[in-house]
């Protein structure tokens, strides 16, 4: 296992906006799934990355 370190800072910078955007997207997608929606419905709204194939292809 790799080593783990902790950085704790108060952010009101670009870093803050990045983490905030990630969190907002996560929440919005969570709500969509909870309502029975599919990720496919959101493909034009978020930049989903196609997972690598589990078959290794």
């Amino acid at each position, binding site marked *: *296992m*790799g*080593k*783990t*370190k*902790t*950085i*704790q*800072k*108060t*952010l*009101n*910078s*670009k*870093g*803050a*906006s*990045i*983490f*905030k*955007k*990630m*969190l907002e*997207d*996560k*929440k919005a*997608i*969570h709500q969509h*799934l*909870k309502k*029975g929606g*599919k*990720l*496919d419905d959101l*493909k034009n709204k*978020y*930049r*989903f*990355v*196609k*997972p*690598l*194939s*589990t078959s290794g292809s």
Partner: protein
Amino acid sequence: MLNPYPLQEADNFSYQFITDTGITYHVYFLDYSYMFAGYPALGRKIYSFNIDVSEGDTDISGSDERTGLTIVEVFRIFFSQVENVTVYVCDSSDERHIARKRKFDFWFWKYSDGSIIKEDGVAIVEDMEILNSLLIHRNNPDCAEIIFAFKDLNARAGDK
């Protein structure tokens, strides 16, 4: 010996697996490379890692080691491209982010084979605590540079 749950590719955007207790998990990655334009070392293949439950109640299902094993399997696949980098943020809207982080850390500690390095951060944004972690393959050719950039990202308090 426990095995990961079978991963299904239900769509082009996520992995899905269903536990023995009937919980349906979605695991997906979002591309945020475009947001790291000011951080060239980070800006090539930065994805957020997300795990979500669409069916079932994790509160009543108890702990399930196979779930952790399955998440690690997703990372094994994801990091088969060693240039990939992922950031995990814990949802803090329901005040359960510390528990989520603890579970994620436990999975990482227990099941990681040592090929992945995890760097933790805590961002305070508008009085909200956002726990975050960077995960990077040890053999990423830019490993040290990317970790440095991640630290710098957290350290730039006050930048507008």
